């Protein structure tokens, strides 16, 4: 199947709603992080959302955090 369209790919093949829910924005020790839930029910850092360069030395993508220590935003 070849689709010739100006409609963006993400509108043609829409992502499952559940995919969006896997990633969440959280606060951990005052640092905003984008985390993804793992199969073992932990949260893995996907991105550090901070402008302070020091935070990037402490928090790296891949670090696993326990759900109880996280403050969920929205």
């Amino acid at each position, binding site marked *: 199947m070849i689709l010739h369209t100006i409609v963006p790919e*993400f509108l043609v093949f829409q*992502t499952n709603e559940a995919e*969006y829910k896997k990633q969440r924005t959280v606060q951990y020790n005052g640092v905003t992080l984008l985390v993804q839930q793992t199969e073992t029910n932990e949260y893995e850092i996907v991105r550090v959302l901070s*402008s*302070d360069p020091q935070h990037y030395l402490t928090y790296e993508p891949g670090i696993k955090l326990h759900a109880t220590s996280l403050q969920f935003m929205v």
Partner: protein
Amino acid sequence: MEERDISQEETKPSPAENIVQLGQTNVPQLSSDSTIHCLTIVGQIEGHIQLPPQNKTTKYEHIIPQIVAIEQNPNIEGLLVVLNTVGGDVEAGLAIAEMLASMSKPTVSIVLGGGHSIGVPIAVSCDYSFIAETATMTIHPIRLTGLVIGVPQTFEYLDKMQERVVNFVVKHSNISEEKFKELMFSKGNLTRDIGTNVVGTDAVKYGLIDEVGGLSQAMRKLRELIDHSHQQGAMLQ
């Protein structure tokens, strides 16, 4: 038996009591507050539609509060903006660019890899801009990837939106409107599209970006701007 045991324990001082202080060696700590903060504009600039999680996006609802916090925090002296973006939503990109342009603290931007499309106004919005020698910036006309209704209305709408981008870039960089539009509408540079892909030194030659350089040059410039703003502050007092 039991009673005697207890009394014996009481007379015997526990080892912990003899220790006046449980100490730890002092490790010299770096000051936790950085005076220069860094904002990374990476991936796609996300607008009103949330992109699927596999896309790397810069969300303005994350960036704008950070800019506000940096502006307000008295410990932060300057801001370094690092760009490696493919572009994205025009309104969101212009919002970030306007926020950066209206900051009172010194700002320096570096384009690494790419600062394409709506990344151009963000790169020029800072007080001083750098581009890595290998980095590129694509300048092209505004497009709508979506459902288009009427041709004349669409044209007017896009034309006005494009004027906003052109005006912003011309106002915040040394490029002339004519040159910017010439690059924007030039043919034969991009595959099946109009526009120009400007590489490092060319971006400086056209006046779009101030200087070719990397991290050390950008940090030096930022320090220089901070010192300058301190001097101005002292003179005002």
